[in-house]
């Protein structure tokens, strides 16, 4: 293989190193919450199982597919920019952005149904975790969409090149984290009994 011309060494983490510090911290925060969930569930399995049945697994499953597909689009966006194709990159990322929007809408419908049923964080421990975890994740999806939007705008102006696409990789890394967290969250809270 000829020596790579671009500044991104293959051995390095993709994107800006600072984003990996965030990703690590985010994973730690969610990790602690997941452990706390497991710990509290063990104290009252019946309550957790009963409350879990009231969640909409269908919308959770659709959202899982939506996020995984969006991550695929992001991968294609990064591949495009590595070939210096700003336009294609922007198109793929716009696809991911729209899917992020779909996730947000489905999640809001779900939240609405719970609030309409008078379920709050004080209802019981299961709902406290369900609402907290999915709300924190929801905020990350919104944050990820803001980041994607900024990258899309820069790409549309032709702001990246084969030499300089660290920004795209940085945003992509964050988006994959958002996706990854959901892939753990969905089975943990919606399915595993």
């Amino acid at each position: 293989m000829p020596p790579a011309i671009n500044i991104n060494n293959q051995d390095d983490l993709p994107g800006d190193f600072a984003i990996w510090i965030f990703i690590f911290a985010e994973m730690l925060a969610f990790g602690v919450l997941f452990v706390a969930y497991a710990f509290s569930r063990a104290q009252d399995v019946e309550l957790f199982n009963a409350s879990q049945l009231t969640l909409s697994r269908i919308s959770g499953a659709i959202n899982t597919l939506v996020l995984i597909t969006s991550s695929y689009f992001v991968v294609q966006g990064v591949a495009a920019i590595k070939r210096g194709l700003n336009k294609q990159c922007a198109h793929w990322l716009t696809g991911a952005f729209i899917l992020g929007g779909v996730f947000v809408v489905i999640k809001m419908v779900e939240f609405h149904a719970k609030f309409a049923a008078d379920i709050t964080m004080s209802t019981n421990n299961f709902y406290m975790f369900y609402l907290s975890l999915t709300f924190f994740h929801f905020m990350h999806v919104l944050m990820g969409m803001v980041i994607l939007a900024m990258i899309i705008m820069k790409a549309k102006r032709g702001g990246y090149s084969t030499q300089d696409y660290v920004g795209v990789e940085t945003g992509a890394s964050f988006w994959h984290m958002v996706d990854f967290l959901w892939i753990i969250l969905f089975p943990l809270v919606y399915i595993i009994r």
Partner: protein
Amino acid sequence: MKYKSQAVAKLYFIAAIGLFLGQILFGLIMGLQYVVGDFLFPVIPFNVARMVHTNLLIVWLLFGFMGASYYLIPEESETELYSPKLAIITFWIFLVAGAVTVLGYLLVPYASLAKWTGNDLLNTMGREFLEQPLPTKVGIVIVALSWLFNIVMTVLKGRKTAISIVLSLGMLGLAVFFLFSFYNPVNLVKDKFYWWWVVHLWVEGVWELILGAMLAFVLIKVTGVDREVVEKWLYVIITMTLVTGIIGTGHHYFWIGAPAYWQWWGSVFSALEPIPFLMMTIFAFNMVNKRRREHPNKAAVLWALGTSVMAFLGAGLWGFLHTLAPINYYTHGTQLTAAHGHLAFFGAYALVVLTMISYAMPILRGRAANPERAQIMEMWSFWLMTISMFFIALFLTGAGIVQVWLQRMSPTPMSFMAVQDQISIFYWAREGAGLVFLIGLLLYIGSFFVKGESRAFE
């Protein structure tokens, strides 16, 4: 110094050190009252000494922050301060208002003070740390806004850097969150809930931005490391601070009547609060290791490194010690809290102000660094104050652990005052460490008067 208007910082620094000395003297009085209950009674009762001790702390740190920002903002913005005159007027207003308030605490019964200062018009007094009479509170708002205005106008007309933006954000937050001190609902739960928006969101939120900006500034100056590197660290650290610190407010909501989910939210997020402090330590040592120059002001480098370590220990580690709800259930409001409070305030905020003074004061006095002998004395004062404060924290931690056991966990729990008698040995030890701290502080003040050959600018 590069800009003439930076000179206003000197006034603020001198006032800060003077009030710092006052704070420590009242700390010693109060420390003795823990074991000799009627010491100085009825002239200075314990509650008054405590009020003066904590209020002076806040005020001298604010003087320090203001002085530091008047020093560093012109240099960061590469332009003169927007209005040095306003900075000087603000200084005198703040100093006089502060002095009158402390005299009011000392000379007038608190209830009369409340009556005379219009507390019945807008009831804001009588709450820990927010004891100031209404006119003083209004004065603080005016002073904070004048400071913010002066700094922001300077930033706007000059170069914008990450440091000046972070510092301005911190100051904006400081001004905004202080407004909650005017909100005093009758409902005690709500009162406490929003009281923490001033207290917690200051020290575990916006003040940390000011701390980060000041530390980053000094590190750039003394190490000569690239600005981009320092700025990236600064952004990562303050983001982590806000992400963990804002929801971390929940660790104060465990037992005050707020919804139960705060026990989870508060525990989880505040358990992560040490991370930005740990990052700050790694950052400071990294920068000093990668230094591109040997700055003649060795003392300033020591203060800066000391800040990063002691902030991590005091705020990070000692905070984590009792931040999880199941542990806090037993430790809430014991001497463990006092241990954390002392080491965190000293480690994070007192030290960062002293770092800034140590770096800037020689330059304000027309030299790159103080004479060797003065610096050695300053470094002695660093070690004396830091080690004695660490011991104060250790003794109070010991007191707290015994207190929790005797009063709350033992099969035959004792009453509060009976327990206080049992732990008096810790209080005596703490008072001893406090005296060593005072010696350190006097040495520090003395170091400003040491004469000798000093390094000129390169």
